[in-house]
Each structure stands twice: as structure tokens, then as C-alpha cells.
């Protein structure tokens, strides 16, 4: 009985040790993976911030005005509006 208990204790100890070792290895591996993902997320977020800022800068009204002016567009005035096909009721507005 005693030797059986001893054997069981030894087997349990070895199994526990192996389990802990495996667990530790897995945790370390996952921690490393997570650290890489966090770093990647941080980098991508930073890039996204920069791109959003650049987009906002490029799309600011003053920039669009300059592009529009280069191509000969002028601000739309109501007197430029022409009702198309006034007799019919359907259809969306169309641009000449």
C-alpha cells in the first residue's frame, strides 16, 4: 500500500512538473506573441493616425478650392441651377 502511494506520488509529481513546464512554455510563447501583436497594433495605430491626419489635411476646404479653381470650377450659386425635364416628376438631378 505504501509503495503504491509512493509510486503514485512520484508519478503525480512528474506529471505535475511536466504539466507546469508545458504550461509555462505555452504561456511564454503566448506572451511573446501578444507582445508582438501589441507592438504591431501600436505601430498600425500610429500609422493610421498619421494617415488620417494627412487625409484631413489634403481634404481641407482650402486645398479643395485650389484644386477646383485649377480645373475651372466655381462655387455653385442657385442661379446656376436649371430644372431638367420640368414636366416629368421622376428622376434624380443630372449634371450637364
Amino acid at each position, binding site marked *: 500500500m505504501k509503495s503504491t502511494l509512493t509510486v503514485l506520488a512520484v508519478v*503525480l509529481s512528474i506529471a505535475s512538473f511536466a504539466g507546469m513546464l508545458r504550461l509555462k512554455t505555452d504561456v511564454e510563447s503566448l506572451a511573446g506573441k501578444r507582445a508582438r501583436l501589441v507592438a504591431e497594433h501600436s505601430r498600425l495605430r500610429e500609422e493610421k493616425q498619421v494617415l488620417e491626419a494627412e487625409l484631413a489635411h489634403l481634404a481641407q476646404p482650402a486645398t479643395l478650392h485650389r484644386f477646383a479653381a485649377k480645373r475651372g470650377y466655381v462655387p455653385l450659386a442657385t442661379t446656376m*441651377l436649371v*430644372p*431638367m425635364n420640368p414636366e416629368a416628376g421622376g428622376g434624380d438631378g443630372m449634371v450637364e
Partner: protein
Amino acid sequence: MAWWNKPKRGAETPKPFAFQRKGQPVQRHRVKVRHQQGYRVPERAEVYGKGVQLRAMVVVFALCLLMGSMAVQLAYVAVMPATEPRVSIREMPKEALRRGDIYDRNGVLLATTLKTYSLYADPKRVLDANEIARAVPKVLPDVKAQRIRRLLADPSRRFVWLKRRLTPAEAQQVHTLGLPGLGFREEFVRVYPQQKVASHVLGAVDVDSNGLAGVERKFNDSLRKGEDLQLAIDVRAQDILASSVKEVLDKSEAKSGWGVVMDARTGEIVAMVSLPDYDPNHFGNYPDEARFNRAVLASYEMGSTFKIFTLAQGLAAGHITPATQIDCREPIHIGRYTIKDYHAKGKVLTATEIIRYSSNIGASKIADMGGPEEQQDFMRKLGMLQPLDIGVAEVGPVRYPDNWGRIQTFTISFGHGMMVTPMHLVAAVAALTTDGYYRVPSVVKGGSGQPSHKVVDMRTVRDVRDLMRDVVTSGSGRNAQVAGYDVGGKTGTAEKATAHGYSGTKNVVSFVAAVPMEQPKYVTLVMLDEPKRGYHTGGLAAAPAVGQFIQRMGMLAGLQPDMGKVAAERLALERKAGVRHTTAAKPHAVAMQDRAQPQPRGEVHEAFRAAGIVD
């Protein structure tokens, strides 16, 4: 007898240990001595008797305890649900320090925070300060060698900034130098990609990301926590208002100009401009004059725009109707003051005509019907007697007479003797033209959150709308007319107060408008400080700017123009210019269906056919 002391079968019974007591183990060091004395050599088990067994059991028990706890721990890990990993202190603190972004009402980015690198030196670790003083200025020209030498002269210091906020290219160049004692620290820099657009709303931050002005200062705490902020500002409206004010500012050579656009139904400030303005990316480079937000921080005598309130008060109290006739033939003499009209008509005017011709005499007489207390109470309801917090750090004062008597009632009736900010004026006009409820204006999307309160009833609102519309169709606000839109408004021209009384040549001119007048959606105010002759009234300088703003912003804001009126205006313009278009040679135009006005289509089509625009 214990099993290990039992004699072997057939063997002579050995002499037992004389000193061995029953049940006690044999001590190792005595075995050899006793063996020499003729005693039997004890077996191994006899030597490590019960005492050894006890120790072994203790060790086994300890091991079992250890393994058991490990097993429990394993079971706990296996069975319990995974928890969110705690953020490492090394990973995230800088992200947590990132200041929140600011967006306009449509989600356009107005302010954000980007990572940058700042260069520092550790004088103790510097091997050759002269080398750093020679090399660094070559890649960073604005860092002077003399300054570097001075900073590095004291080796007891462990940290000195050489330059903050380097570009990535600059940081790489410095890094390539490979000089010991230099280092980089990651920092965050506030960036305003729209540059000057909405600068006075946004404000700016200092080098340590503390808000200095505008919403950056007002919402400093929440922004520092990383919370984003969405404003009611629309960058399109903001830009159009700025360009409209700028255009008339340049023409009129005024010292400054400012404007406000408010969503009349919600109290949201859609645009707020104060020129000259500044680029918040370089806040420190601009003078105080450019940083000064005239739309909320400065208070003025508003002039004739106040007549809207005088008429509304009289209408609400039942003293007058739009048709009530007031004798405006003679100036009013009260005390040492004489109240007269700028455009004297010298006749009896109706209430409508008093607004149309901006009669000071008429406004004074209407205000006198209610007296000082009624006027003061009405102004209080319109929020004119207390500073206005709209969500930016700047809150301008209001000034009104301590002794509010009859003379003060007369002068306040036409906008003198009381000073409020432009924002006060806009909020009050919105209340009188929308639904009669006063709403605290706010630059934050969703409004101020403060409850609205009733000022006047809808009958008064309708009358005020008619009066303001009449000013634009027949009065001093004609320059604000826009084809297709029913614009209503009121001009204001106030002489500036000087040390020697009111100046006869320096004016603050204004025009406040609501559009569309049938059910106002936006209230717009433009003001100019000291425009030159030819632009010296609200009708000449400010009204065109408001008209231009409505012209450009109307369709962007979803205000459908009345196509019948547009066609008529267009026809009139083309006839005036003597232009005839054929179908093949029509001017560039955006064509749209007029769904809101199905009835005039035929007439419009006929008009265009008559003009040769369409077949």
C-alpha cells in the same frame, strides 16, 4: 519484537545490544564499537529504524503537499475562465497619455496627436561636448552650437533638452551621428490638419499638451484622459463663412471681422470665425490680436440689430402689431440727449417700417411703452444679462446700466448703452425666429444640454419673421438677398465709443440673418470693425457677406432653393446682360429636379423656353 530484530531461522540467537531499548533504533556511531565488543552487526534496516522512517514520511508529506498545490493550481488554470491580460506598465503608458482627438459634426478630423521624437543629452555621459556642438547643428540648423556647449557645460546635470519634436528624418540623421550622451524620448505632438479652419473654436495646446484656448482648454481634462470630442462645427460651413468674411474684410479694409452660424433648432454652433485668426499648429507665432476670439470674448454695442428685440418685446406684450403707427416725425429730446434717425423719414411709420428703415425714434417709443422693467425682464429672458458659456474657454462679459432708467431704455432699444457678445445676439435672434424658445448655444455636437425656456409665443415669432424678411426685401438688408432663398435679417451700424463720446467715423457694422424665413434653420451673423467709407454700414458691408455665405452653403446644408424664384432671378440676370442661350450652348450648370415646387415647373419651363434656354 520488531521484524528486523527477529533472529534468522536456524541461526544462533545473537547477543542483543545491551543498550538497545525496545522499539528504539540503533545509533550509527555506536555500531562499530559494539561490534568490536562482540555484539552482532545490526542489519541496515535496524540502523535506520523508526526515526528514519519518520523523516522519510515528513519528506513524502511535504512533496505531496507541494505536488498537490501544483495540481490544484493546474486545475485552477485549466478550469477557470481566462482573464484579460493586465497591461504591462512598459507597454501602454504612452498610449494612455495620448490626448483625445477632436472631430467636426461630420467626423472630419480637426485635431489629433501624433508620436514624435525629442532629442536630449546626458552631460555626464557625453564624451566630447565640442563634437556634439559641431555635429548636431549640421543636421539641426536651429540648434545653435553655443547653446549646446552651455547646456553640456555642467556635467552634474543628467538631462537637458536639445530639441523637441524632431521629424523622423531629423531623428534618423541625429541617430546616424552615433554620438554618446545623446538620446531620444518619444513624445506626442498635437496636430491640426485643417490649419486655420476653426482655429478659434479649437484653441491650441502648449508643448506639454495642456489646453491654452478654445475647446482644447475647456475640455482639457477629458481630452487628456484620451477621450475624443465631437464638435457641432461643420468645416465646410466654417470655411465658407471664413472666406465670405475675409472677402468683405479685404474689400472694406476693416480692422477685423467675425461671424457666427448657429443651428436655430438645436443651439449648435455650426461655424464661428474671427479674423484675423491663427494656425493652431504655430499658436505661439501669432500676436494677441490674432488669438483674440471676437465672436465670444468681445462685447459690443450692437446697434440697430437690437431693434428686433424691441419690436419683439412690443409685439409679445401686446403694445403693438406690425401695423401699429408710431409718430417718427420729430427727434426725441430727453435730458441732454437727442434721439434721431440715421435715415430720417419725417413721417408716421408702422412698426414694420420702423424696422425696415431702422428708425431709432420709433424703436425708442415702442420700448417706452413697456418701460425699463419690462425691457430688462425681456433682455433677461433672452440671456442678454449674463455671460454665455458655449463650450470654449473664452467667455466674454456683458455690460448694461446699473441704473436702468427711461433714457437707458431708449438707447438700449436701438442697441446703445448695452454691450453683449455676438454670440448673445445670435442666440437671442434664434429664439425669436424659430419657435420662441431660448437655447444656450454650444460648440459641442448635441447642444449645451441645458433646458430651453420660452421667451415669446408663436404669433410673435411669425411677426418677427415677417419683419426681418421685409428688411431684406424692402429695407437696408437687400444686399443679403439670395435667389431661391427667403432670407430675413436686420442690419446694425453702431458708432464706436471713444474717450470723447461716440466716433462719427468709426463704426462696428453687422448683419444678422435667418434662413429660410418660413422655418429658420440657421441664424447667421457677420460683423466688421471699422470698415472704410463705402462699407460703413451693416447693409453695405456685412449683409453681402451673409448673402454670399447663404448662397454657397445653402445647398450643402440641404436647404432646397425655390426653383421658381431661381428661374425668375436667372432670367432677369440674363435679360439684363442681354444673353441668349441655345440648347446646345447652355452655360455650365448643375441641373436638378425641383421636387419641392411642382407647381411652378410649367411656368419655369415656359420662361426658359421664352428665353431660348430650352426647346
